[in-house]
């Protein structure tokens, strides 16, 4: 059980916790922020599993594209109510 395995285990637990946090957060506006943090933990997991390209893709997608999509959809949906 060396340091790498410990880090990977810790990040796996964090990812599981992050996923749970995204689901348990009911307010969509807060949920988009939690989604961004979840994407970051997922990217760190990919980095710990020695896949830096995948981690970079996850950072840009989970940090920029997905929150933008969710926030704009939220604004539009709220406006239509």
């Amino acid at each position, binding site marked *: 059980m060396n340091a790498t*395995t410990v880090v990977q285990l810790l990040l796996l637990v964090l990812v599981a916790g992050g996923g749970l946090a995204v689901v348990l957060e009911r307010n969509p506006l807060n949920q988009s922020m939690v989604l961004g943090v979840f994407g970051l933990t997922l990217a760190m997991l990919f980095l710990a599993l020695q896949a830096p390209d995948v*981690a*970079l*893709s996850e950072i840009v997608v989970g*940090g920029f*594209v997905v929150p933008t999509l969710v926030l*704009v959809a939220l604004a*539009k949906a709220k406006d239509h109510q």
Partner: protein
Amino acid sequence: MTTRGRLTLFVLSAVGLTAVLVASLTGLPRFGSDAGRYGRLINRSAAVERHVPEAVGAVTFDYRGIDSFGEESILFAAVLAVALVLREQLDEDDLPYKLDEDPGAVTAGETTETVRLVGMTFLPLVVLLGLSVIGHGHLTPGGGFQGGVVLASGLALLYVAVDAATFRTALPDGALEPVEAFGLSAYAVIGLLGLVFGSAVMDNFLPFGHLGRLVGGGTIPLLSVAVGIEVAAGTLLVTAQFIDQLVRVMRSRSAR
């Protein structure tokens, strides 16, 4: 369906899914065991054959270059679909962006000094980071797609730091669309030039240079730049469409 019915269905499905998951996960190879024959082969030969230390980049732009063309085209089609879905409706009026317009009329209010300062400080840094990730696609992890989105997010800071009018005037659709199209067609042209100067489409026909140099690896850095240009312009187009929607929402909200 009643809540109870939904819950029953979920429990049954969850039990079945758990059983299948456990059965399949126990049959997997040990965590961290052999990466597979193709992985070992690429690790051995990518740097030697293509003089490129980034094996993933060599696979994405050379050994499996046609896949990246497909991915680029998917992004192009997605940007087209977003622009189509969010096009101006009959009951929506035109959005003329005037730079000297009162910022409060377009956005919810002027951005604060802090946001403006931090945003404008980070804009050149993030743009530089994006350009670096794109340009070093054959040397460091990353490449065209990742660097392209970083570049787009850096330029989108113009909207965050200032206002929508500045963003749309500095990066209008009329400028972004040809750039995106150029990125996609550049990839296709380089691929076809492989047929002209080499032996097949997507053949790496340029000289490979020295390992680890910025100029090297044949067509790999060129394809990375082409993908970066296309992805950056496409992401900015999608962001621009979203910003238009946000401005419409804010205008209708202030009109009420």
